[in-house]
């Protein structure tokens, strides 16, 4: 029995000589990466061209390798981050930051070719991360669906949002 199975294994392994190889010869031949591939991280803007990030720190809090560092802008009423830094030498591309982000600002993209000769070059600042488009979520604007008033939108004017209730008028 043992001999038979060994011979059978030998034969089947030998047949693999005539199989097509699975290897993708990388620099010449690029692999297919799905749109959901978790690669280089970007910060996106909403359809109006404003920065999506609202400095909620959720991504920094959820990041298992603690590689996101950001600081809310010191200007009153401005919620964009003053600096936003991702240390890609520590990032494990788990995608948890993307899941945590309430505004879809932080997104992972199908790009993994980010090798550098120096480690410090792997620390990306906001100007490296921020792109001018909307990324994978084309028509999502956090402020348009959240119940806060911003420039150009009063409370209650957002999509699927009821006008605010007058708390005093609720009295019986």
């Amino acid at each position, binding site marked *: 029995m043992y001999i038979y199975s*060994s011979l059978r*294994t*030998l034969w*089947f*392994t030998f047949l*693999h*000589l005539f199989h*097509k*190889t*699975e290897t993708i010869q990388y620099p010449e031949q690029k692999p297919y990466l799905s749109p959901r591939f978790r690669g280089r991280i970007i910060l996106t803007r909403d359809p109006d061209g404003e920065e999506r990030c609202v400095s909620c720190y959720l991504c920094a809090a959820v990041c298992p390798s603690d590689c996101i560092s950001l600081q809310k802008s010191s200007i009153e009423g401005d919620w964009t981050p003053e600096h936003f830094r991702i240390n890609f030498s520590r990032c494990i591309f788990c995608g948890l930051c993307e899941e945590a982000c309430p505004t879809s600002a932080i997104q992972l993209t199908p790009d993994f070719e980010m090798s550098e000769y120096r480690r410090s070059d792997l620390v990306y600042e906001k100007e490296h991360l921020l792109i001018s488009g909307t990324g994978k979520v084309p028509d999502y604007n956090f402020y348009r669906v959240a119940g806060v008033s911003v420039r150009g939108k009063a409370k209650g004017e957002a999509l699927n949002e009821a006008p605010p209730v007058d708390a005093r008028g609720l009295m019986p």
Partner: protein
Amino acid sequence: MVEILIDIGISVALLLSIVTLAAFLTFVERRLLGFWQDRLGPNRVGWEGSLQVVADMIKIFFKQDWTPSFVEPVIFVLAPAIVLVTVLLAFAVLPLTPGIGIAGHLNIGVLFFLGMTSLTVYGVVLAGWASNSKFALIGGMRAAAQMISYEVFMGLALIGVVMQSGSFDLVKIVEAQRHLWFVVPQFFGFIMFLIAGIAEAHRLPFDLPEGENELGAGFHTEYSSMKFGMFFVGEYASIVLISSITVILFFGGWNGPFLPPIFWFMLKISLFIGFFILLRAALPRPRYDQLMSYGWKLMLPLSIINVAVTGALILSVPA
């Protein structure tokens, strides 16, 4: 005088070609293993990776030649040399073709071969012992036990061939196979010799002395640079050795129609080398106790029976 010079020339050429072939085998093996696992293997350096060996050589020569402080320095350095030298010495008795061969008609050829393969175990055991580390020591002990047990029936397995050809001389053995290769009458002898040969060369599936998953790298755990390279080349040289001796004893050596003898010999040993690599690609290691019980409880009795039956047949059928 001229004859001596020619002999020396042949010896040196053989030595160089064996070492080169052994080094080249590391590349061939990686390529073939790659194909058998649906990969490509090393194919970047040179045409289809053919210069990979050169790159490896450069790399291994420039590695730090490190002798750890806890080892027994003299024996530590000597051990890889013993392995390589004994394997290369065994080539001395192999007749490649009627003309090419160092020892020619040596009337104890088979015994010399067995002796040299037995000496290899010293290199391995001393390497394990001189390394002064537990993994290396366990590897060395395994090697000793394995090679001694498998040697026993390796010798017995080829007694059948010796009985049929009536000589220990490898040239005579090859000439006796002009009409019928010994693999036909000595089929069981061949199978057992092959298994013992794999164990002697401690190749997969019988490479328990270096079982990576439990011993690091076994007896050569502490070796680096060219000292490791010598074990490595020694291992591949012993693949060539076992393939050649199998071809000589069981597959008619250089005998073959039309083409020149050296071509037939090369073709046959390359098939065997390919088979050795296929074994590595396909079969898992047995457990150590399984290895020992195969050797002593299955192979040894079978080879004794083989000797007895061959002897009985030779005596009962007058030539």
